[in-house]
C-alpha cells in the first residue's frame, strides 16, 4: 500500500482488502525501513495510532457509507502541532520532553474524521527555515536524493509523503514552508487562505502569517484533507466565520476560459533555467486546457522579502518569549532569574531562532519601530493591494514555487541565500491568499513545483486549477526511490 493515495486506500478499506491496523503496520514498517536515511520523524506515536486504528475499524464497520474518507488513513503531523500527551518539540531543544495537555483544532478535526496519527515530523526549529537543516534533531533527507534538503520548514511532513510512508501529512506555511518543500520533494502542498484553518494548537512562529495545510500525493486528496480541517473555530479569533464551500464540488470544473496571470517578478534572474523550462512547459499545458495566460506585475515582490523578514521576526520575538524555562521545557538552573533566562534560552534555541528573535526585538525597539515595523506593515498593505489589483484581471496566478530545485545539504550557509528560497511564496503569506504547489517536472531527477495562487477565500479555485493541471500530466505519479523500497 506504500505510495497509495487517500482515495485508493479509502476504497481498499471499504472493499475489505485492507484494514486500518494493516495500513498502520505498513506505514510503521516503512518508517523503520527509511528513517535511517530520511530522519523525517521526531516521534512515532504507535500507541495513539493503534487506538485510533481500532476506533477507525469500528467506525468503518458500523458506518461504511458515512465514515469520512480519512477514516483509518495513516498520516503524520508536523511537530509544531500540539497533540494531547504526545511529545511536541517544534524541532527545538527548548521543548524537549514537552507534552501539551491539549490537542489543536485542525488535528482534532482529523482525529474526529478517524485519521490515524503515525507520528510527529521533523522540521526547522519553530518552523524557521527553508531546508529543515535548522532542526535541533538533525536534518531530513530528500527522498529523491538524501544528500539534498527536502526544503522547509515542513521538510519531514513533505519527505514522509514523498517517501510513500503516509498518503498525507500536515505542515505549516509562514512564508512558503508547505509549498516550497512540496515542490522540492515532488508532492502536493497547499497553504489555505489565512483564517480558513484554525491555528489553535499550532505553536506560533509568526501569528499573522502562519497557516496549517496538507501535503498529499494528489490534488483530490489535498481537497479532502483541506475540507476536513477548514472552517471557523471559536478558539481562534482570526479564523473566518464564513462557511467553507466544498472544494470537491468544483474540483473537476477545469480551467477552460480561465484567465491566469504570470507575475513577471516571479520568474526573475534567480530562477534556475531548468525550473523555468519546467514551469513554462506547465503554462503551455494550461493553455492547452483552455486557459488564457497573460503576464502580470506584482511590483513590490522585491521588497516583500524585506517586509517578511521584519514582520515575521517581530512576531516571533514576542511569540517565543514564553520559552523562558519557568514552567515547561528545558531550564538551565542558575541562582539568579536573569541568568536562568539567558542561559536557558542560549542553550535551548538554535542559531536561526536566535537570529530572528534578535532581528524582531530590534525592529520593535523604541526608536526603530517606525522605521522598521510600521513601515513594513505599510508595505505589507501595498503587497496585498497589488494582489487585489492583479486579481481584477486574472482568476489565478501561476508561477514556479521555488526558484531552485532541492539543493545539497550545507550548501546555503549564508542566511540571505536561504531566505531567497521563499521569494515567490512569501508574498501569498503577506497577502493571506491561498497557494498550492503541484509537481510539474524534473531537473536532473529532482522535482519542480508549479505554484497556483488565487484571491483570499478562493481556495477551491486554487485546487481546481491545480487539479486540472495534474490530471493532464503524470509528474505526480512518479515515485521517489524511497517510495519504491520493497518490504
Amino acid at each position, binding site marked *: 500500500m506504500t505510495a497509495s493515495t487517500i482515495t485508493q486506500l479509502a476504497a481498499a478499506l471499504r472493499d475489505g482488502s485492507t484494514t486500518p491496523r494493516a495500513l498502520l503496520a505498513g506505514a510503521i514498517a516503512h518508517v523503520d525501513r527509511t528513517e535511517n536515511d530520511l530522519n523525517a520523524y521526531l516521534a512515532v506515536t504507535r500507541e495513539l495510532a493503534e487506538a485510533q486504528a481500532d476506533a477507525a475499524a469500528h467506525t468503518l464497520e458500523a458506518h461504511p457509507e458515512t465514515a469520512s474518507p480519512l477514516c483509518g488513513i495513516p498520516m503524520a503531523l508536523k511537530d*509544531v*502541532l*500540539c497533540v494531547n500527551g504526545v511529545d*511536541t518539540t*517544534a524541532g527545538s531543544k527548548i*521543548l524537549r520532553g*514537552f507534552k*501539551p*495537555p*491539549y490537542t*489543536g483544532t485542525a488535528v482534532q478535526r482529523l482525529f474526529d474524521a478517524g485519521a490515524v496519527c503515525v507520528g510527529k515530523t521533523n522540521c526547522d526549529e519553530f518552523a524557521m527555515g527553508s531546508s529543515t537543516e535548522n532542526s535541533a534533531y538533525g536534518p531530513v533527507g530528500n527522498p529523491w536524493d538524501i544528500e539534498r534538503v527536502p526544503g522547509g520548514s515542513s521538510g519531514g511532513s513533505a519527505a514522509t509523503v514523498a517517501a510513500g510512508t503516509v498518503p498525507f501529512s500536515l505542515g505549516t506555511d509562514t512564508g512558503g514552508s508547505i509549498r516550497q518543500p512540496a515542490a522540492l520533494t515532488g508532492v502536493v502542498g497547499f497553504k489555505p487562505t489565512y483564517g480558513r484553518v484554525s*491555528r*489553535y*494548537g*499550532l*505553536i*506560533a512562529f*509568526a*501569528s*499573522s502569517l502562519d497557516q496549517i495545510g496538507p501535503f498529499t500525493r494528489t490534488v483530490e486528496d489535498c481537497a479532502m484533507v483541506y475540507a476536513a480541517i477548514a472552517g471557523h473555530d*471559536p*478558539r*481562534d*479569533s*482570526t479564523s473566518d466565520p464564513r462557511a467553507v464551500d466544498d472544494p470537491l464540488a468544483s474540483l473537476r470544473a477545469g480551467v477552460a476560459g480561465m484567465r491566469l496571470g504570470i507575475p513577471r517578478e516571479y520568474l526573475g534572474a534567480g530562477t534556475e533555467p531548468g525550473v523555468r523550462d519546467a514551469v513554462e512547459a506547465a503554462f503551455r499545458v494550461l493553455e492547452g486546457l483552455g486557459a488564457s495566460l497573460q503576464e502580470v506585475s506584482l511590483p513590490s515582490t522585491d521588497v516583500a522579502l524585506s517586509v517578511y523578514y521584519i514582520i515575521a521576526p*517581530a*512576531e516571533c*520575538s*514576542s511569540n*517565543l*518569549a*514564553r*520559552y*523562558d524555562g*519557568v*514552567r*515547561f521545557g528545558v531550564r538551565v538552573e542558575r541562582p*539568579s*532569574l536573569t541568568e536562568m*533566562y539567558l542561559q536557558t534560552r542560549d542553550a535551548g534555541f538554535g542559531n536561526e531562532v536566535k537570529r530572528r528573535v534578535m532581528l524582531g*526585538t530590534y525592529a*520593535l*525597539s*523604541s526608536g526603530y*519601530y517606525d522605521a522598521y*515595523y510600521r513601515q513594513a506593515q505599510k508595505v505589507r498593505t501595498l503587497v496585498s493591494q497589488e494582489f487585489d489589483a492583479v486579481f481584477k484581471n486574472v482568476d489565478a496566478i501561476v508561477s514556479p514555487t521555488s526558484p531552485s530545485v532541492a539543493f545539497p545539504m550545507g550548501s546555503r550557509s549564508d542566511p540571505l541565500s536561504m531566505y531567497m528560497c521563499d521569494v515567490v511564496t512569501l508574498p501569498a503569506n503577506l497577502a493571506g491568499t491561498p497557494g498550492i504547489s503541484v509537481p510539474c517536472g524534473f531537473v536532473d531527477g529532482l522535482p519542480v513545483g508549479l505554484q497556483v495562487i488565487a484571491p483570499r477565500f478562493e481556495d477551491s479555485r486554487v485546487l481546481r486549477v491545480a487539479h486540472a493541471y495534474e490530471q493532464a500530466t503524470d509528474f505526480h505519479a512518479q515515485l521517489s526511490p524511497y517510495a519504491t523500497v520493497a518490504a
Partner: protein
Amino acid sequence: MTETATRPAALGRYEVVIGLEVHAQLLTRSKMFCPCPADYINAAPNENTCPVCLGLPGVLPTINEKAVDFTVRTALALHCDIPPFTKFDRKNYFYPDLPKGYQISQYDLPLSLNGYLEFPVGGEAVRCGITRVHLEEDTGTMHHAGDVLQSATSSLIDLNRCGVPLMEIVGEPDLRTPEAAREYLVRLRQILTYIGVNDGNLEKGSFRCDANISLRTPGAQELGVKVEVKNMNSFRAVQRALESEIERQTGVLDSGGTLVQETRGWVEAQGRTISQRSKEQAHDYRYFPEPDLPPLRLDAAFVERVRATLPELPEARARRFQEQYGLTAYDAAVLTDTREEADTYEALVAAGVPAKLAANWQSGDVAALANEHHTPLQHSGLGSDGLASLLRLVEAGTINGPTAKELLAELYVAGGNPEALVRDRGLAQVSDTAELSALVDAAIAANPAAAADFRAGKQQALGQLMRAVKDATGGKADMPLVNRLLRDRLSEQ
C-alpha cells in the same frame, strides 16, 4: 508630622502636579482571554488555569465580551469618547508571573479617551481629566521564600490571577494636592462599584493605584521631573506617600539638587518612598499590535446599548435624594455612598417608612450595627424588609424608640419578624393617657424633691421623674407622651 510641617510650605514654593493611574479588576465571571473563572482568591493555587492563561505553546486568546462591555460602561460613566475602532497590543517583558512573556494590553488605540471626573475637595469642585480607559489582563502572583525575588531562595507562582480582566484608568495630571488625589480615588472607586464593574478592594488589590508626581515653580508651563510612586494599598497610603514625596522633592530642589525621573516604592512601615528603578533601567516594552486578535469595531448602537445599562450615578442620585426626600446634602451623600446603601434607603421609603425617619435610622443605628458586625444590612438577619417593618412600628407609635433600638440590635444578628416579636413579648408601647397619667402622679408622689426642683425651674430634674415612669412600664412607655403629661401636671396649680 508631614501633614502639618511640610505641606503648606511646599505648596507655597512649588506647584504640585499629580496624575493617577488606576488598575481595576473587572467583576466578570471568566477571565479576559479564556473561559477560566476569574475568581482567584477563593481557589487553590493554579486551580483556575488552562492552557490559554498558562501561556502554553500553541494557544490563542479570545476576547471576553463582558469585559469590553464593562470597560465601555466605565468609560461612559467617566464621560469618555468611545472611538469606533480599537485594538489590542502586546506589551513585551520577561517576568515569571507573566507566562506568555507579554501582556495583552492596549497601546495607541484604546477603548476610550478624553473623559473627566468631578468631585468636591474641601467644599470646592475639582475636575480631573481622564486621558483614557483601556482593557488588559492581570498577571499572576508570586510568593517568595525571602523578601523579594532577587534574594529569595525559592519562589512559587500562582497563575489563578493571570488573565483576569484589568481596566487601566489613566488620569490627566490635573490634581494639585494629596487630598485631591485621595478624593479622586474615593470618587472613582465609588463610581466603579456603583456601576458594578469592580469591587473596589484596595487591600486585596482589585483596585490599585500608581501616582505620578512632580513639582514646578508656580505659573510654569512645563512639567517638572516626574516620579512614579507605587505600592500604595490604601487611600491613606496614597495621601501619605504623596505628602512624603512632596517633602522629599522639595528638599532636593531647595538644596539646589536636581530630581531624576524614576519609579519609587512607598514603604508603609518607614513612611517614605525608596527608589526602585531609574529612567535608564526602564523597560522598552516593544508594543506592537496583537496579531492573534482582530481589531474591535464598536458601533454606536453597541455603545448606546451599554449606556442604557448604566445606573444612576452617585452624584446624581444624591442630588435627587435631596430634592425628592428632602434630605440634607450630608444625609444624601451618606445614603448614596454605595449603591446598596442607596437601594436600601429607597426600599425603606417605598415600603412606607417616612423619608426622614428612614434616613435617621439607616445612617445612625443601622450603620453602627453594620460596622460592628462587619455585615451590611442586606446580609444581616433583619434585611431591609425587616427594617422597614420595624420602622413602620416606630412610625405607628406601636413601639417606642428605645424598644426599637433593642429589637434592631437583636434582629440584626438573630433575624425574625418584628411585628410577631412585639406581639409575643408584649413590647407594645404604653400610650394610654389614663394609665400613664396615673403613673405620672405616682412618680411625682414618690419623688417630691425632684418635682419641687423642676417647679423651681430646674429642667434636669424632669429626668428622674421620666425614668420613674419608664421603669414602671418596663421601658415601654411612650416617652414623648410621658414628657408632656409630666410637664402638664407639674405646671398645674
